[in-house]
């Protein structure tokens, strides 16, 4: 595949592939920084495969496999059901801000990625989805799309402002909403690549994933792999909270977590949550050892997820946080699946007892553990599994706190102001 002769140079000490400094919101700035996008086609899929790009929305699925599934499905279908590209910029995860930041700082990089992906899979239309409550982001995208009218790349782009709920970003929920239904997950199969928007083969990719694809289309897989490691190539956007300088950072994959945290200013670590509320807790010791790589994190029962990382300081009550967030996760259930609709509130209630010191005989903890086993894998989407990982890893990492609360009642920090955010979602599913 022919790529631009002059690859984009990474900085000496840090990378700014996705988040240009200063931001490149306008097309003229974007083109001045990266040049005109190449008119790539189907061969992009091979290049993305060589790059080893994995989805940045949370599941980490190999992007090339998804693209090829949509392309071959589209090629086989008659009746004019052309594939369509959906860029997923919904970010219901309260600890993540990277998708919104990317869309405001480099909207054209995401749109380039949509165009390149559309060409690769044989689509002529792309929809970028973002919560309608994020009005500055919606406006930034509308402006950016309007600016591109003269690019004549043959791909029609539009913004779809979605309801703001936690599970909206699940790909079947997004497709169901785009088709006029509720933004709730649906039973699979069919998955969107088989039958998605308007029953067309649908490529749903996270906006960061598409931005990486745009860079791969420009500069090639070899260049893209020059950051990161052999098994975890490229860079990733991470959202850091509970640090002195919270915010969105771009880091090479494989970076030691302690470097990433130290760079943002950290001291007094009580526990680290990796992957947002769908993620897993690490002990301070684990956090000091682990690198931001899939295999390394997997050993500790964790994963990169959407890259949201929260540090809980040692003077926070982790059980109060655990109880509040579990309650919130339960409230985010679409209420469609019995195990989720009933199981998550039951688990949340038990975690509350453990936290407030009323679980003297450990019966609530025993019940919670039984329910965690009971609900895992039984939802149409992964909400129950995410909640299970969050609570189970919390039980392990904060075992000493649980014993303390049981023996002596809640700690002094139990009634302190909340640390982990639990936003109030919109009521509507449409």
């Amino acid at each position: 595949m022919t790529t631009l002769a002059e690859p984009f140079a990474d900085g000496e000490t840090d990378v700014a592939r996705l988040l240009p400094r200063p931001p490149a919101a306008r097309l003229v700035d974007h083109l001045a920084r990266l040049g005109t996008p190449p008119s790539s086609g189907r061969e992009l899929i091979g290049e993305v495969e060589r790059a080893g790009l994995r989805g940045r929305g949370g599941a980490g699925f190999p992007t090339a496999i998804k693209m090829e599934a949509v392309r071959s499905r589209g090629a086989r279908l008659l009746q004019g059901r052309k594939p369509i590209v959906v860029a997923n910029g919904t970010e219901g995860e309260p600890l993540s801000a990277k998708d919104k930041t990317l869309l405001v700082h480099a909207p054209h990089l995401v749109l380039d990625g949509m165009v390149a992906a559309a060409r690769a899979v044989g689509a002529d239309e792309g929809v970028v989805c973002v919560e309608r409550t994020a009005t500055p982001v919606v406006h930034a995208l509308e402006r950016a799309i309007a600016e591109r009218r003269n690019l004549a790349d043959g791909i029609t782009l539009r913004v779809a402002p979605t309801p703001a709920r936690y599970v909206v970003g699940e790909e079947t929920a997004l497709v169901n909403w785009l088709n006029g239904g509720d933004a709730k997950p649906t039973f699979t199969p069919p998955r969107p690549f088989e039958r998605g928007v308007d029953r067309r083969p649908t490529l749903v990719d996270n906006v960061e994933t598409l931005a990486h694809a745009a860079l791969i289309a420009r500069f090639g897989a070899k260049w893209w792999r020059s950051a990161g490691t052999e098994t975890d190539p490229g860079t990733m956007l991470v959202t850091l909270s509970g640090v002195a300088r919270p915010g969105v950072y771009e880091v090479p994959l494989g970076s030691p977590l302690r470097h990433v945290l130290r760079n943002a200013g950290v001291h007094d670590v009580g526990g680290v949550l990796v992957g947002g509320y769908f993620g897993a807790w690490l002990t301070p010791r684990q956090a000091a050892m682990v690198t931001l790589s899939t295999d390394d994190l997997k050993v500790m029962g964790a994963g990169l997820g959407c890259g949201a990382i929260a540090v809980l300081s040692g003077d926070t009550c982790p059980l109060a946080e655990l109880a509040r967030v579990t309650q919130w996760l339960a409230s985010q259930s679409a209420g469609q699946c019995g195990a989720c609709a009933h199981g998550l509130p039951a688990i949340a209630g038990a975690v509350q007892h453990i936290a407030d010191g009323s679980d003297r005989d450990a019966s609530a903890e025993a019940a919670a553990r039984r329910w965690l086993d009971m609900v895992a894998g039984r939802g149409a989407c992964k909400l129950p599994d995410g909640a299970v990982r969050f609570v189970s890893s919390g039980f392990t990492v904060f075992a000493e706190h649980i014993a303390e609360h049981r023996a002596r009642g809640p700690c002094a920090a139990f009634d302190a102001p909340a640390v982990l955010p639990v936003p109030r979602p919109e009521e509507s599913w449409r």
Partner: protein
Amino acid sequence: MSATRKKLRLDPIMCVGHGLCAELFPERITLDDWGYPIIDPTPISPALEEHARRATDACPTLALLLERERTR
């Protein structure tokens, strides 16, 4: 023989927990604390297929499916 093996699968959205399936096919289906079925995912042997069929046919919401094992 392995090509015709069948598996039970539940559509958890359609299921509202009538629980008839667990009564008709307790060998593979139990109920959780809230009355929703937990399905044993192991393939159904031909000897048990009739029982499995009875359970899927009895489901008032058509949430229980007896499917040919998906080969990838």
